[in-house]
C-alpha cells in the first residue's frame, strides 16, 4: 500500500471549520416558518395511576396551540423493540421519565409555562427498582399483559461441556461483578422538528443515527395514525454526538409528529440538559456472576456467566445487548467451553439503550477482572495468561467467528513494553499496573437481515465530485474518511469532494451508525462506487486521448497516459465532453455493499462480522491509601485497526473512547434512587473534564484486514471496552484490593482498604 496520497494521512475533519466557527447548524439552530415549540410533561412518580389529568388551564394560556395527552395517541400506538412504549402514557405511569402530556406553543417560554399549568392527580403505587426483586415469584407485573417481568428473549449460548471442564480445571476463579447506569453525555442535546405538507407527507429533522430505519419507524407510526401511503423524509442537522443514544426512535419524536399533525404547523421539540439526562436511554446496569478456569499451564478451560440486566420500564435496544456481550464471552481469548445466560428484567427505572460497546464493556469488566483473579490463583503473571490464551489469525471461535486479521498479541506486547510492566508489576507500593483486552466486531455486524450501505457518486462539469452516502456523520468523522477513500481511488483532491449524508430523499439506504461499521461498510461501499465511476471516466478519457484505458491514470483531477504524461486531459473536460456531445451521458455510479457476514442462528452461532477488532489497554495508577483516590499516571491504548485510514481521527476515537471509559471506570454513574434520578446535571454527574484527562498513548497496530477498505477495520467503539477492567486490575496491583462494582470511587477503594486491614468503617 505504498504511494497512497490520502489514505493513511492525518487529514483534518472536513466539517471542523464549520464547527470551530460556530456555523454548523444544529437542531437547536433550526427555525421553520410558522414553527411551534413543544414541551413534554413527565410523570411525577415512578409508578402510579393517573386519576385525573386536566389540561384546561394549559390549553387556555394565550399562545398555546395544542395540548395532547395519552388519549390523543391514535389506535393505541406503541413503539420500541418490543412495541411496549406509548409516546404518551395514559392510565398508568411506569417510570419518572414517562411522558404524560405535551404542549405546542408559539414560543418555548409559553410552552414551558403551559406544561406547569397541567394538573395531574396520581395514586402512587409501590414500585420495583431492583431486577432481582422483580424476578421474584409474586412480584407485581409492570406490564400486565406479560406473565413475568423477565423479558421473553432467548439470551443463551452454550459450547462444549462447562461442568466437565470445571472438574478438569486446575484453578477456578469465581465472583460477582456489577455495573452502573451511565449516560452518553452528548454535547448536543436531543431534538427534532416535525412538519407535514398539505398531503400529510412528513418531513422530520432529526438527530437520529439511523435515518433509514427511523424513516421506517415513522412510516409505521403514520399508518397506525391512519395516514396510509404517505412519504417520510428524514433530514439530519449537524449532530452533536451519538454514541448509540440515537439508535432508536424516541417518544419525543412521535410527540412532535402528533403535535404537528394536530396544529398543521412545524413543531420543534428540543431537550434541555436536564431532560437529556432524564429522558434519553442510558447504558444498562448489570449483575454478573462469572466463573473461569484454567489448567495447570494457564490454558483457559471454561467460562461461565450468568447475567441480569435492568431493562427499565420499556424496551429498546438495551434488551438486545446480550447478543453483543456474547462476542467477548465466547471469543475473547481461546476458551473451549462456554455457558452464558442473560435475563433482562422490567423495573420502574429508566429504560436502557445502545451505548458505545453495546454491552461489551460490562461483559469485559467481568471477564478481564476475573481473569486477573484466575492468574493470581494459578500463580501466573497476568500478561502471561493473556499471551497463552490470545486469539490468533485463522482461528474459528465457539460462536463460529472466523478470525481473519488479529493483532491481539502485538497489542499485548505494546502495552507490556510501553508500560514497563516487568519493573512495575507486583510492587504493591501504592502504584500498580493493570491490563485488559478486547474483541469487538470490526467488519460490520449482521444484526438485521441486511448490513448494507449504498453510495452514489456523481461528477459535475467542473470536475467536482458529489459522494452521496447512506451513512451519517455524527461527529465521528465518517464524512472525512469516505472523502479520503474516494479521493484515493479517483485521484482527485479532498477539496473537490463533497459528501452528502443527511437526507433520506437523496441518500441511499443504510442500516445506521452502529457496530463500529461505518468505515468498513460505508467505506467499502464508497470504494466500490469510486471504482465504478473511475471506469466510466477512464472510458471517455481513453477515447479523447486515443490511449487504451489500461494506460491511463488520474492524479489531482487530471487524467494522463502513464506512457506519456503530455497526453492528459482534466477531469472537468472529460465531463463536459460527456455532457455536450450528441447522445451524451452523465457520470453517475452507484454501489451497494452488503458484507458477507452472517446472522446468528438459533444457537447464536454465525460469523457476525467479516473481521474482528482487537485491542489491549494498559494503565499505571497511583492509589492514595488515605483518601482512596485513584490517579492515572500512564495509559496505553493499543488497538488493532487493520489500517488507519486517518491516524488523527483514529487517535481521536481512541482518546475519546478511552476517556469515556475512564469516566465509566472511576466516576460516572446515574444515581437512580427508587425511580428518581438524583444527579441529572453535569455538576453531579461526574463526567471527566479536560483537566481530568490522563496521559494517553494511542498505539495503532495495523494487521491489514483483507476485506476492509484499504485494510481497515472498525474503531468506533473499542476505545472504552477494556478501560474499566484495566484500571480495576491496576488498582489491585497497587494496593491489593479488588473493586468489583463500578465505578471505582474513592469511597469504595478506601472502604476495601480499611476492611483489608481489619478496620471498621
Amino acid at each position, binding site marked *: 500500500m505504498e504511494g497512497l496520497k490520502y489514505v493513511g494521512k492525518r487529514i483534518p475533519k472536513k466539517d471542523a471549520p464549520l464547527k470551530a466557527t460556530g456555523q454548523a447548524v444544529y437542531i437547536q439552530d433550526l427555525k421553520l416558518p410558522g414553527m411551534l415549540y413543544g414541551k413534554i410533561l413527565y410523570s411525577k412518580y415512578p409508578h402510579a395511576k393517573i386519576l385525573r389529568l386536566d389540561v384546561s388551564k394549559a390549553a387556555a394560556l394565550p399562545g398555546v396551540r395544542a395540548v395532547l395527552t395519552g388519549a390523543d395517541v391514535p389506535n393505541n400506538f406503541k413503539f420500541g423493540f418490543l412495541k411496549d412504549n406509548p409516546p404518551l402514557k395514559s392510565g398508568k405511569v411506569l417510570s419518572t421519565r414517562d411522558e404524560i402530556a405535551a404542549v405546542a406553543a408559539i414560543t418555548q417560554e409559553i410552552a414551558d409555562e403551559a406544561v406547569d399549568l397541567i394538573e395531574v392527580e396520581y395514586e402512587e403505587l409501590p414500585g420495583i427498582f431492583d431486577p432481582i426483586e422483580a424476578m421474584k415469584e409474586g412480584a407485581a407485573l409492570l406490564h400486565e399483559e406479560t406473565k413475568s417481568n423477565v423479558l421473553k428473549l432467548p439470551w443463551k449460548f452454550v459450547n462444549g461441556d462447562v461442568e466437565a471442564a470445571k472438574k478438569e480445571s486446575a484453578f477456578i476463579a469465581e465472583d460477582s461483578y456489577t455495573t452502573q447506569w451511565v449516560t452518553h453525555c452528548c454535547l448536543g442535546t436531543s431534538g427534532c422538528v416535525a412538519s407535514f405538507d398539505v398531503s400529510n407527507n412528513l418531513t422530520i429533522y432529526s438527530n437520529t443515527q439511523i435515518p433509514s430505519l427511523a424513516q421506517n419507524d415513522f412510516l409505521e407510526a403514520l399508518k397506525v395514525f391512519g395516514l396510509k401511503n404517505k412519504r417520510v423524509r428524514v433530514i439530519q442537522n449537524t449532530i452533536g454526538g451519538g454514541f448509540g443514544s440515537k439508535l432508536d426512535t424516541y417518544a419525543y419524536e412521535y410527540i412532535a409528529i402528533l403535535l404537528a399533525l394536530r396544529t398543521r404547523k412545524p413543531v420543534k421539540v428540543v431537550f434541555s440538559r436536564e431532560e437529556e439526562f432524564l429522558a434519553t436511554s442510558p447504558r444498562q446496569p448489570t449483575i454478573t456472576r462469572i466463573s473461569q478456569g484454567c489448567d495447570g499451564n494457564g490454558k483457559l478451560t471454561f467460562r461461565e456467566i450468568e447475567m441480569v440486566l435492568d431493562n427499565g420500564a420499556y424496551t429498546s435496544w438495551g434488551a438486545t445487548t446480550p447478543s453483543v456481550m456474547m462476542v467477548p464471552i465466547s471469543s475473547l481469548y481461546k476458551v473451549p467451553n462456554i455457558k452464558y445466560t442473560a435475563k433482562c428484567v422490567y423495573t420502574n427505572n429508566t429504560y436502557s439503550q445502545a451505548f458505545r460497546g453495546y454491552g461489551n464493556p460490562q461483559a469485559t469488566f467481568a471477564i478481564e477482572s476475573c481473569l486477573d483473579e484466575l492468574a493470581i490463583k494459578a500463580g501466573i503473571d497476568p500478561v502471561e495468561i493473556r499471551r497463552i490464551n490470545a486469539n490468533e489469525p485463522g482461528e474459528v471461535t465457539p460462536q463460529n467467528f472466523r478470525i481473519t486479521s488479529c493483532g491481539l498479541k502485538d497489542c499485548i506486547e505494546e502495552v507490556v513494553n510501553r508500560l514497563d510492566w516487568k519493573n512495575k508489576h507486583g510492587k504493591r507500593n501504592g502504584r500498580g499496573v493493570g491490563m485488559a483486552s478486547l474483541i469487538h466486531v470490526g467488519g460490520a455486524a449482521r444484526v438485521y437481515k441486511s448490513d448494507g450501505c449504498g453510495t452514489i457518486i456523481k461528477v459535475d462539469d467542473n470536475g467536482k465530485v458529489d459522494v452521496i452516502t447512506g451513512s451519517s456523520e455524527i461527529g465521528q468523522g465518517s464524512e472525512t474518511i469516505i472523502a479520503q477513500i474516494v479521493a484515493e481511488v479517483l485521484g482527485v483532491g479532498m477539496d473537490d469532494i463533497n459528501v452528502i449524508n443527511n437526507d433520506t430523499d437523496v441518500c441511499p439506504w443504510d442500516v445506521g451508525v452502529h457496530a463500529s461499521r461505518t468505515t468498513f461498510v460505508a467505506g467499502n461501499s464508497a470504494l466500490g462506487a469510486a471504482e465504478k465511476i473511475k471506469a466510466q471516466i477512464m472510458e471517455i478519457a481513453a477515447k479523447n486521448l486515443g490511449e487504451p484505458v489500461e494506460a491511463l491514470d488520474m492524479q489531482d483531477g487530471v487524467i494522463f497516459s502513464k506512457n506519456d504524461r503530455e497526453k492528459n486531459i482534466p477531469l472537468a473536460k472529460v465531463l463536459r465532453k460527456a455532457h455536450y456531445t450528441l447522445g451524451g451521458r452523465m457520470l453517475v455510479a452507484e454501489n451497494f455493499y452488503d458484507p458477507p457476514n452472517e446472522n446468528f442462528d438459533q444457537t447464536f452461532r454465525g460469523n457476525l462480522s467479516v473481521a474482528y477488532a482487537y485491542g489491549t489497554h494498559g494503565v499505571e495508577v497511583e492509589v492514595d491509601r488515605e483518601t482512596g483516590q485513584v490517579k492515572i499516571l500512564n495509559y496505553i491504548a493499543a488497538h488493532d485497526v487493520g489500517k488507519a485510514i486517518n491516524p488523527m481521527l483514529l487517535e481521536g476515537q481512541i482518546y475519546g473512547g478511552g476517556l469515556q471509559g475512564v469516566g465509566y471506570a472511576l466516576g460516572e454513574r446515574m444515581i437512580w434512587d427508587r425511580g428518581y434520578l*438524583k444527579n441529572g446535571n453535569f*455538576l453531579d454527574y*461526574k463526567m471527566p473534564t479536560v483537566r481530568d484527562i490522563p496521559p494517553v498513548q494511542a498505539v495503532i497496530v495495523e494487521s491489514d484486514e483483507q476485506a476492509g477498505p484499504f485494510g481497515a477495520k472498525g474503531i468506533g467503539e473499542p476505545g472504552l471496552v477494556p478501560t474499566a477492567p484495566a484500571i480495576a486490575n491496576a488498582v489491585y496491583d497497587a494496593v491489593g484490593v479488588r473493586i468489583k462494582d463500578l465505578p471505582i470511587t474513592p469511597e469504595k477503594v478506601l472502604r476495601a482498604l480499611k476492611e483489608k486491614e481489619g478496620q471498621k468503617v
Partner: protein
Amino acid sequence: MGSFEYYKPESVAEAMALMEGSGGKGVYISGGTDVMVLIRQRKLSPGCLISLRNVRDLDYVDTSSGLAVGSAVTHNAIAKNDLIQKRYTALSDAASKVGSLQIRNVATMGGNICNAAPSADTACPLLVLDASVVIAGKSGERAVPIDEFFLGPNKVALGPGEIVKGFAMPAFSEKTGSAYIKHTRRQAMDLPMLGVAARVTIRIDGNEIGCRDALCTIDNISNVLKRFEDEKLVCEDARIALGVVAPRPMRAKKAETALKGKVISEGLFEEIGEIAASECQPRDSIRGEAWYRRDMVRVLTKRAILRAVDRVIRPDDTIWPERLW
C-alpha cells in the same frame, strides 16, 4: 426565564437606593454565576436585577495594611495576586479551584460568600485568615467577623438592602503559612465533597526559620519536618476551618486549641486531624457519604496543616510545587 428590569448603578449608594425602590423585589447581581443559574432554574424570579459590576468602590485589592479585598474582585484576580499567593495562600488556593477558568473570570468573592453555600470555597480561607466582612448599609459601614457572618445554609448576617463592600484581613508575617485543600471527584467544574483550610504561625527560639540549603530539596514535607525535630518548632497560633461538613462553614476550635503552643510534628497533626473529624457533622448525600467525609476531614486536616507549615519552612514556591502533594 421571566422578564425583569436590569440596573447598572455606579456607586454603593445608588445601588442601595435602587434596592430600596424595588419594593423588596430587587436582587443584587455581580458575577451572576449563582444568580443566573437560580433564575434559569426558576428558583428565583426577581422584579429587577441590580448589577454591582460597575460599582468601582467594590473592586479593590489594598495591601497597605493587611489585606483588604473588594467584594467584586473576581476569583481569578485573587488567585493571581502575588501578595495573596505569598501571605494569604489559603485564599489563592481556594480561588484558583472554583469552577472553571471561565467562571473564575466573572465570579466574585463577594458572591461566593453571600451565597453562603456550605461548600463555598473561599469561606474556609476567610475563616482561618481572621477576616472581617465590611458591610455598607443605610446607616453607614460596619464590620462583622466572618465567623459571625454565616448564619446557616444560604443565610448571612445582611440586613435588607445591605451590600458587602469587601473583606479585611490582618497582616501576617513570614512565620505564618496557610493552605486550603478542596476534596473533589474531578479536577474542575466541581463542588468540594469537603474543604479544609489551615493557618499556622510558627515560632523557633533564637533562629530564623526558612529555607536553608539542606532543606531546599524536593523531599516530602514529612521528611523535611524530621530535620527540625531537635529545634522544637512551636505552633504559636493556629486556625482550622471546615467546609461542607456542617450546615455552614465552621471553625474546628477544639482542634485549633489542641494545636496551639505545641511543638510541631507529623504525629501531632494526626491527632489534630482526629479532633477536627470529631468536631464536624457531615451528612450523607449524593455528593458523598458521611463516614467518608468525616474520615477525609481527619486526613485532609493533617495535610492542610502540613502544607501550611511547609509554606513557612520552604517559602520559595519553586521548591514546593503542586506535584509534591
